[in-house]
């Protein structure tokens, strides 16, 4: 399951995101993707469609001042489902973040990302950082 083609696609996508290839990264989302973010912060809520999701990731980028480091810890996938575990670190002048996140995805027939929701091991730290 960790070497499923959908898992390999996620590994490549995280590499693209980290190398600054935002368009390449966003191309993995389905046109009508639903992206859900919990918590109480500026990024919380539901974003629909690839354009809105793109804006969400650009505001993420802006909030971290581009300082974030995302390490893929593990990825599990079958034809229709995927869960990726990520270590996310970010530093800003006034705050820093270091959390482990579980991110669940429902996949489309072509392996694209149709719906996603995620949760951090320390939600309060995420809320403080992105408030």
């Amino acid at each position: 399951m960790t070497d499923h083609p959908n898992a390999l696609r996620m590994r490549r996508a995280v590499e693209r995101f980290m190398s600054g290839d935002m368009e390449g990264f966003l191309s993995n989302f389905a046109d009508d993707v639903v992206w859900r973010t919990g918590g109480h912060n500026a990024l919380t809520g539901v974003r629909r469609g690839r354009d809105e999701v793109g804006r969400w990731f650009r505001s993420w980028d802006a909030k971290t001042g581009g300082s974030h480091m995302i390490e893929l810890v593990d990825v599990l996938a079958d034809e229709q489902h995927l869960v990726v575990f990520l270590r996310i670190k970010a530093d800003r002048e006034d705050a820093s973040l270091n959390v482990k996140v579980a991110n669940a995805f429902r996949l489309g027939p072509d392996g694209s990302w149709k719906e996603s929701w995620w949760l951090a091991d320390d939600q309060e730290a995420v809320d403080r950082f992105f408030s």
Partner: protein
Amino acid sequence: MTEHPGVEGARASIDAFNRGDMSALREFYADDVVWHVGGNHDLSGDYRGRDELFAYFATVREMTGGTLTLEPEAILTSEDHTAIFMKVSGERDGKTLDVTLAEAFTIGPDGRWTEFWSLADDQDTVDAFWS
């Protein structure tokens, strides 16, 4: 094809939950398990240690009069992690719950589960149900 032990364990734990066999369920969790529940409802937050976790399970069962039922949709696993996508349904004070949860967990060295993320696809519905 023989199922991966992680998949068998996940399935057995769901069966134990559904039939209310808490002593069988306890065996799956490490003593110092940490359980993260997302959302903004009365049960959101972190539960630390098996006793806290099982007090939480007892509360959940009590609040729903034992109607809460888990139906696995997909189980994914690797050496270190397992994820279960499941339909969760239940009733409480005339309210009904019908959502998909992704439960993602870390497997400790002895095979017991050490850290859990419980992620709901439709957090607003979950919040309304438990509040």
